């Protein structure tokens, strides 16, 4: 009996090659997409679960609530929190460690390199597990002249030699020291939020002049991780964090009023929650984290593709079922029970699903490396993993049963007398209608995916081409001009760059576009009730800055060497009690925040703020520039001040004309002739700004691939249905031709039959896609306008219709051209 079923099943598979191929290809692609996305999702969920203390590692995050501004969330905390946590929670907190990454200039014998290394506390060894391959990690992290490096770093600098005991000279700020390699550890696996290539011990004495790094309460530069003592719940910490804030932090500006905890709020985050933070990926992580929304979207899309493949399966099976009516009727006459028939047909569809799975797995093997490259992960497919196996078999069972159950029930329900007597096996209208509904669903999904692809891509194009308020073309930033080794020569360097052919204008600045750095100053503005304090972002620039960026003045004038007061005062150089005065340029947003009526109105107004070392200064506003998206094109424009102050000039902005590589070549040659201790590094401003949208770019490519797959699978199904229908309608077509219908009439008739579901699918897909994408667009302060979605929908509809026509058209034309008497002769 069983043998007989298998025989029939296999023979059916081979006899209906088109039908089998469509099902198997569709299922293979659908299952492959599912498997790859499942691997991706599992990997995302696996982050930081491998630490032996995974359930007990927490990070301290800091949220600033500046008055009148959006809260500013950081994934770091201030250096002193390490000691404060231990003193405030002596019974609860077990270990605390900090990670503070710094770019160092590294010297190995005669060669200089620029690298980023992590400064950390010895407790890191107690919290995290490292796979040490040589040396002693604990001793290394307890010694301020030792360095622990990972294997990649060791290989990069020492090749096959033993790295232990070798020395590298590191310079950072004023520190310059020979570090001995004390430990080499295996590279951290990719599924952790931690990332660094080497660790050095934090010795706070090394950074006394850079108090913002480790010892000051107003800078957040450290990732702070801690573990709790056994039996302590993190809730007990959470509840007392406001008290913690109030005990250790004094409000910088008494004028603000209220408690410290009104302005600074700490929160704890389990390390296992960081990768897929429900609040969305945050800036400032050691490496880009994942995103719950992406994981959910991907899973949903994989599911939808599988649904499309399943629909093909169901549709073709029901369509074909009429052709198998005779077999069923005969089996029934010979005594088969309904249940046996249902089992037989379900078995057949599970068999097809199984074959689809085999091909799907082959596809995964072929595609996984490129998919992995795309999502920036090394994904492997482990067949022996019991969870994987059970998920796969589960999928096959679901797909097989879903695809087979309806036709199985219909077929087994045929009444043999009816089937055997009727010389044609006309279909029930029910199954034809179900089929139409399913085709509509397939195309609705495909169309929605096409629209989404268009919107994501459109937003990316829009954002990268948006006018940022300055001219981002033909502009490069030379980095590192503020490092020791470069800082002394930077003015001479600037002068010489300005004289290079192809260079139009040069200017220093503290920040470059899209740097993500935030500096803010509290400014006191005269108001009706005396004085008001507002928080304003700040940049430091030099004279040529606005010229170089081609930012026009809305009111007043730009900084000029003719006015001594344009230069911002330095509080450290000022005498106690002196009345410090200076001039200031701000943007329109700052004018609004200050409460002045207009840019013109702001000119001549005086605001006050601290200038370091406890000194205060009065600033007269002399110029207003328009709002520029200097900070980030992803975020709302913020109110900003531009100080004329040389402090922190790390970037040299160069406006050039002509061939960029030649200009860069000249600048690089000049740099190398003047500065030997710091490597030359530069960026094109438009590239840096485009990088802010890499995520959207990747998303749109992936979406396009998935949308393409969905359309292809849906069309495979349509092709199968079309050939089936054409077969079923040959007699009708023959009659119509005898009645005088031309080939064109017939093709039109068949195309229309398949256009109807696609058109209907548009009506369903459009509102869903529009709603979904409008929601997505809300993530962006600057976004394409809503009406753009309508033409996108139209285009998606036309694409779907065209593809459907192309799919069905060939078949329709062939059928329409055939001689009608062939169809009518044997009846």
């Amino acid at each position: 009996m069983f043998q007989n079923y298998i025989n029939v099943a296999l023979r059916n598979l081979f006899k209906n090659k088109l039908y089998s191929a469509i099902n198997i290809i569709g299922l293979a692609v659908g299952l492959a997409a599912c498997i790859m996305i499942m691997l991706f999702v599992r990997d995302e969920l696996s982050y930081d679960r491998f630490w032996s203390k995974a359930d007990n590692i927490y990070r301290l995050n800091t949220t600033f609530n500046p008055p009148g501004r959006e809260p500013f969330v950081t994934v770091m905390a201030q250096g002193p929190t390490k000691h404060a946590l231990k003193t405030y929670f002596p019974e609860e907190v077990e270990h605390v460690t900090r990670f503070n990454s710094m770019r160092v200039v590294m010297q190995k014998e005669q060669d200089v390199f620029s690298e980023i290394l992590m400064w950390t506390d010895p407790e890191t060894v107690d919290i995290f597990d490292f796979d040490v391959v040589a040396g002693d990690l604990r001793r290394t992290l307890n010694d301020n002249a030792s360095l622990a490096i990972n294997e990649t770093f060791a290989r990069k600098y020492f090749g096959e030699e033993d790295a232990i005991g070798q020395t590298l000279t590191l310079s950072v700020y004023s520190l310059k020291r020979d570090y001995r390699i004390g430990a080499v550890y295996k590279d951290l696996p990719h599924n952790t939020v931690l990332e660094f290539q080497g660790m050095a011990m934090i010795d706070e004495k090394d950074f006394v002049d850079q108090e913002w790094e480790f010892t000051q309460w107003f800078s957040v530069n450290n990732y702070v991780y801690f573990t709790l003592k056994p039996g302590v719940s993190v809730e007990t910490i959470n509840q007392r964090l406001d008290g913690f804030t109030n005990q250790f932090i004094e409000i910088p500006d008494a004028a603000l009023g209220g408690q410290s905890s009104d302005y600074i709020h700490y929160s704890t985050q389990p390390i296992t929650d960081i990768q897929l933070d429900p609040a969305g990926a945050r800036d400032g992580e050691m490496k880009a984290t994942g995103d719950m929304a992406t994981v959910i979207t991907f899973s949903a899309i994989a599911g939808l593709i599988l649904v499309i493949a399943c629909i093909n399966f169901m549709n073709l099976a029901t369509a074909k079922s009429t052709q198998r009516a005779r077999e069923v009727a005969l089996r029934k006459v010979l005594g088969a029970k309904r249940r046996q028939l249902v089992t037989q047909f379900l078995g057949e569809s599970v068999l097809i699903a199984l074959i689809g799975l085999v091909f799907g797995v082959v596809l995964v093997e072929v595609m996984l490396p490129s998919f992995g490259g795309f999502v920036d992960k090394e994904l492997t497919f482990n067949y022996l993993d019991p969870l994987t196996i059970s998920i796969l078999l589960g999928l096959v069972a679901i797909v097989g049963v879903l695809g087979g159950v309806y036709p199985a029930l219909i077929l087994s329900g045929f009444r043999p007398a009816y089937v055997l007597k009727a010389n044609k096996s006309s279909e029930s209208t029910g199954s034809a209608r179900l089929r139409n509904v399913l085709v509509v669903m397939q195309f609705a999904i495909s169309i929605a995916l096409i629209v989404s692809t268009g919107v994501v891509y459109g937003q990316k194009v829009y954002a990268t081409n948006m006018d940022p308020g300055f001219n981002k073309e033909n502009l490069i930033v030379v980095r590192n001009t503020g490092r020791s080794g470069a800082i002394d020569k930077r003015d001479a360097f600037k002068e010489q760059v300005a004289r290079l052919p192809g260079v139009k204008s040069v200017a220093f600045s503290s920040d470059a576009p899209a740097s993500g750095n935030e500096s803010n100053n509290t400014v006191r503005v005269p108001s009706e009730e005396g004085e008001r304090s507002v928080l304003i972002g700040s940049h430091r620039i030099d004279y040529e800055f606005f010229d170089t960026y081609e930012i026009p003045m809305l009111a007043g004038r730009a900084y000029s060497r003719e006015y001594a007061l344009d230069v911002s005062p330095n509080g450290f150089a000022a005498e106690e009690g002196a009345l410090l005065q200076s001039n200031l340029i701000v943007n329109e947003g700052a004018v609004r925040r200050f409460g002045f009526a207009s840019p013109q109105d702001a000119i001549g107004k005086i605001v006050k703020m601290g200038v370091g070392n406890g000194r205060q200064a009065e600033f007269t506003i002399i110029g207003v520039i328009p709002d520029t998206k200097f900070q980030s094109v992803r975020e709302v424009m913020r109110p900003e001040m531009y100080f004329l102050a040389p402090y922190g000039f790390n970037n040299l902005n160069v406006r050039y004309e002509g061939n960029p590589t030649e200009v860069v070549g000249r600048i690089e040659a000049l740099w190398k002739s003047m500065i030997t201790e710091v490597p030359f590094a530069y960026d094109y401003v438009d590239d840096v700004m485009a990088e802010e949208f890499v995520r959207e770019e990747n998303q749109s490519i992936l979406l396009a691939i998935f949308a393409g797959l969905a359309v292809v699978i849906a069309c495979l199904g349509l092709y199968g249905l079309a050939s089936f229908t054409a077969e079923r309608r040959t007699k009708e077509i023959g009659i119509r031709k005898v009645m005088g219908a031309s080939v064109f009439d017939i093709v039109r008739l068949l195309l229309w039959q398949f256009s109807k579901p696609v058109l209907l699918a548009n009506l369903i897909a459009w509102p869903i896609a529009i709603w979904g994408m409008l929601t997505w667009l809300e993530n962006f302060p600057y976004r394409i306008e809503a009406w753009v979605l309508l033409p996108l929908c139209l285009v998606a509809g036309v694409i779907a219709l065209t593809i459907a026509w192309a799919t069905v058209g060939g078949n329709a034309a062939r059928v329409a051209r055939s001689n009608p008497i062939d169809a009518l002769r044997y009846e």
Partner: protein
Amino acid sequence: MLKLHNLSKVYRTDEVETAALNSVNIEIESGEFVAIMGPSGCGKSTLLNIIGMLDSPSSGDYIFMGENVAPYGEAKLSNIRKQHIGFIFQSFNLIDELSVEENIELALLYHNIPASERRERVAHVMDKVGIAHRAKHMPSQLSGGQQQRVAVARAVVGDQAMILADEPTGNLDSAHGQEVMEMLQSLNEEGTTIVMVTHSPAHADYARRTINLFDGHVVTENLRAAV
């Protein structure tokens, strides 16, 4: 009306060549009622299909209304066919998914006739063949005789000058068969040329002339004395 001259039809399949028609010469006048008879497989249907321009001859000439259509391609033949020729088949060949009305209308659908006129003409022929009360029914709800009446209505609704009928009574009992024959006869009396294939000598008697085919040849032509 039409003239076949030395007309042959050869079917080629992979292994065999079948000469379905062999140098056939036939002339049919406008307004005639011709019956074609002969044993099964002698080429009757083939002949009718060629006359009806559903198929093209392998060699020879086919002069239809003064025009040699033998070399014409499908599109041209289809144009002539839909203007002048109506068909009736043994197995009715109605479209299952369309109602009686719609099946008849089909013959006008490809003629650029406005919908209102189509409706009028359909109603008219339905009256004529006595099927008007079944206008909204589907073919599967009709008896064989009724279905064939619908087919007759469809064949004449376009005012075709010639009707080709391939065993129109083959699937009907004798009462219904006679009904159809009478219908054809009255159409012929109104001036329609009728060419009919039949196995029934009784039904052949309705025709004024009988052509006997054997193995692709015309054997005899009997002219029945005018009544």
